[in-house]
């Protein structure tokens, strides 16, 4: 069976590299994009099984990318995990609820994210879609 493809969109190159190693160790194929526009393009060309989107990116941020992905019937069904560093215990719910509803993202993870936690969330979403 072909490996599942994950598109990782984050302007932090080092972070991307580490996540790539992590997910590849679980036999996923990982494609990287470093800004919102590149992310959207790759989402169209690569047709990933899942997208991990950093919220804080220059120019086109993760929320905007997510909204565009969810508005397009072709990419609508691809599960999206939003990642953000703008989180604390204090603001967690507001972000998950409000932004989640607005963008229709499928999951939300606060940075810093634990490696095991990231893998768990990815697997949950992919299994749900089988």
């Amino acid at each position, binding site marked *: 069976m072909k490996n599942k493809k994950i598109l990782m969109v984050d302007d932090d190159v080092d972070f991307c590299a*580490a996540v790539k*190693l992590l997910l590849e*160790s679980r036999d996923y194929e990982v494609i990287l994009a470093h800004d919102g526009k590149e992310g959207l393009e790759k989402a169209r060309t690569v047709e990933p099984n899942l997208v991990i989107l950093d919220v804080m990116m220059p120019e086109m941020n993760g929320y905007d990318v997510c909204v565009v992905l969810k508005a397009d019937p072709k990419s609508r069904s691809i599960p999206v995990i939003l990642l953000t560093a703008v989180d*604390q215990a*204090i603001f967690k719910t507001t972000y998950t609820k409000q932004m989640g509803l607005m963008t229709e993202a499928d999951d939300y993870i606060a*940075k*810093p*994210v*634990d*490696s095991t936690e990231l893998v768990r969330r990815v697997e949950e979403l992919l299994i749900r879609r089988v």
Partner: protein
Amino acid sequence: MLSKPNILVVENNIAVLNKITELLTSGSYNVASAETSMEALGIIQKNPGRIDIMLLSLDLPRLGAMPLLETLRKAKSPILVIVMSADCGEEAIEAIHAGAYDCIRKPFTTGRFWVKMNRSIERFHLKRQLESLQKERRIIQGPVSDSMLAILDSMADGLLAADLHGSLVYCNSKAAAALDLMCDEFGRPKQQVIKNKELERLLADTIGQEPDSLPKGHEICLWEVGEKRLRVHIDPVFNRDGELIGVVALLHDVMHISGLNNIKDDFIFMVSHQLKSPLSSMLMQLSVVVDGLAGDLNSKQKDLLSKAKEKTKGMISLVNDLLDFRRIEEGKVLQQIERLDLREILQRTVELMAISAEEKNIAIETHVDTDQPFVTGDRNAIEAVLVNVISNSIKYTPGGGRVAVTIYRSAEDVRIKVVDTGIGIAQADIQRIFDKFYRIRSETTKNIAGSGLGLSIVKRIVDLYKGTIHVESEENKGTTFIISLPAAR
């Protein structure tokens, strides 16, 4: 409202004793009785300050009434004494010389008893009122020397004092200028009403506090009066007997430093944000390497990198706490006030904590002992309270321990009780655990990472919501936190 005096009846004639007791009880007075002066003395000594009026028969056998009166006079007892005798003659005059207030002649009719009694009770109330007036006055009416006034007036900061009614009783020239008050040369304000609503509220809050509650006043806030920005420090004033007699406020002009403060805040905010992303990256990189995904590690390498990973986590939580703190100071924790179900918030918090508790093999138990676990507040703020206090307990509880959280009602409050089987807090440290950046340094805590901000975040939020935190702890046994928040109406 005037409180009814407690009355002690000392009479060896049981029939008379019963009659008086009956009369007083029917007037809903609290009555104690004694048949000898020794017994009476015992009651007085066992209940210091509790007996207000004593009805004393002069016909007591043995020791008699006079030695008791003498003893009370020597002890400067405030008890109002009314003697009772058959003739109110020589002996009664002697008793009045010894400090008694009046004499009731025996036998008496109900009518005559009450005439005398009511007069005495009225006297008691007047005495009480006079005492409390004097006490309140004492905050300013004590001897103040000219040089003391000059010193207060020469201070760079404004100083003002108010009595228990919230009336202004003193202000120095700086305070007068800052608040547009007119004062005479002794610092006595020409108008006693303070125009500043904020000050009135703070005074009322400080005065209205429970005498045992912590901290005692010490409220700091910022006022903007016209062009001025004042940092205000309010403290209760206690007399030598520890009684609250008023409040004192120190007004510090912060116009020039508020600019600096903004720069500092912006700096912290910027640094925190700039630190967060790279730290998150580092954590992920270290996790991947420690998990062996970038090649095998020997045990020494793994050990070193695991430690680096923990340190990185610690830095991230410090940054998070700093950002949380800023939000509190900006008042963002009061933004969206809604009715909140603590049962639901507790459940979510415990889910959030599950991983860190599991890693340490700590059991978290929750109980909700009320069907009204509702408070009003900002969801994020109340969540932060629970998250911080529970994670604190997990942090300071050794592996294999237990953290139990109970939510229950107590009168108008909803309480959150967090009990752990942790390392406990020394008495000397309990006062300080809510201070910003305070961390207890000891052998047991040196390996526990923390910013020292978590509990001060809790404290600030709870204070903002007019709640209280109570801490009990025994070293090596555990700690109990009880947070009371006003219940939603």
